[in-house]
């Protein structure tokens, strides 16, 4: 037992060391510049985690998303998605406040009140029709605003959760704390609701990514590298709030 306690951290250290990407020699400055620009120092370990995530996605996640699409009709999925989006609005408002944008935070509060009442617990996105469009903020973006840079440090591939950076990973627990629903209610039922919400959120997000994900995988020469690049570019856009707001539709327009 004593020996195991000694071996475990050593093993962990060995794993980290073997999971490090090698820095190109100084004789090749361009390769070095590329290495720092890529900023993925534990790439081999990240790729191993990615392989696990891919298997998880293939066996469980994507089938669940497909079943969701097959068994739950589109208008109901949209309603569920709207409820989930609405639940995220208080957290967004808190982060907008922390980013020093009280006007946007006020808009979010108004949006939340309108959709929770007129929109029947958020099922109908009435606020978007009134011109208050959906915005999403998380603590990772807030940290980026505070730091004044879109660069979030070394790239990390988290088990199950997927692509991230050191900064965004550090921000995750704060987002849980900033979400008011973390602090409301207690007991097994509330806990079950919370788990259900997270699971539905994951399946909902995956369902929307089915076609795009398949197309990306089919086109990619290196799926991991493509996802890494896309994640970093999208985070940059989200930090700068340059994305077009996405409103869910109940039916196809045609």
């Amino acid at each position, binding site marked *: 037992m004593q020996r195991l306690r000694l071996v475990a951290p050593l093993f962990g250290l060995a794993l980290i060391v073997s999971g490090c990407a090698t820095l190109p020699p100084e004789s090749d400055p361009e390769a070095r510049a590329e290495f720092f620009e890529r900023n993925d120092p534990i790439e081999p370990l990240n790729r191993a985690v990615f392989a696990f995530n891919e298997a998880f996605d293939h066996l469980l996640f994507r089938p669940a998303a497909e079943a969701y699409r097959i068994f739950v009709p589109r208008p109901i999925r949209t309603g569920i998605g709207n409820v989930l989006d609405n639940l995220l609005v208080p957290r967004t408002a808190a982060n907008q406040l922390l980013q020093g944008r009280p006007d946007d935070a006020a808009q979010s509060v108004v949006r939340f009140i309108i959709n929770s009442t007129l929109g029947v617990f958020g099922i109908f996105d009435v606020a978007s029709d009134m011109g208050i469009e959906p915005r999403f903020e998380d603590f990772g973006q807030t940290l980026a605003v505070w730091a004044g840079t879109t660069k979030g440090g070394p790239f990390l591939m988290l088990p199950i959760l997927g692509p991230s950076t050191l900064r965004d990973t550090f921000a995750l627990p704060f987002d849980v704390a900033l979400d008011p629903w973390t602090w409301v209610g207690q007991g097994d039922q509330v806990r079950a609701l919370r788990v259900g919400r997270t699971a539905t959120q994951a399946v909902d997000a995956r369902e929307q990514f089915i076609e795009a994900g398949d197309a990306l995988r089919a086109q990619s020469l290196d799926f991991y590298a493509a996802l890494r690049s896309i994640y970093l570019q999208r985070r940059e*856009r989200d930090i700068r709030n340059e994305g077009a707001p996405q409103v869910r539709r109940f039916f196809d327009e045609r």
Partner: protein
Amino acid sequence: MRAHCRTLLGAFVACLFAASPSLANDAPASAAAAFIEARGAALKEVLDSDLPASEKRERVASILRDAVDVQGVGQFVLGRHWRTASEANRTEYLRLFEATLIRNLSARFGELKGLRFSVVRAQPRGEDGVMVNTLVEFPGQAPAQLDWLVSFASGRPLIVDLVAEGTSLRITQRSEYSAVIQRGGGRLDSLLDAMRRQLSALEQKELAQN
């Protein structure tokens, strides 16, 4: 009379000069929008037609060659490895790059039939050119915003990038290609091999579809 004429002429010339800066700002934007509109319409006409697949592919290829700065984008995507590549490798790379671009469309002719698109607006992006925002609707899917970066650097409008949901295609492709080369021990050949494999996979898919 003469004086009058001169003032008129002066006013006319002054107007011309006053007007030219705003023309210079607006002209590329509207030219880029019209360019995307026209190329898109031409592409849509071919995609919706009932021509045999090989004929369709030929026509799509000629539209792309005319509308996209294939060599410029190909060089950008290869990045620092372009400079160290041999002449033969450069030629082979550009051939594969163009073929992949075309096959990526032709392997999806079925899905692309009946797509609708509209130009939303065009915004100047300084030296880079003009970003033209379009809304593209694939049958049965929510409309997606696709942005086309049109450059006038060569003297005529050419597409140099495609941006979807905040993701630049050429930047994504560049980091992907550099990862393939890096994992292949820094050899360009490993990328060329991967591109050849991808191309033959796309050809298989196209054959299976038609």
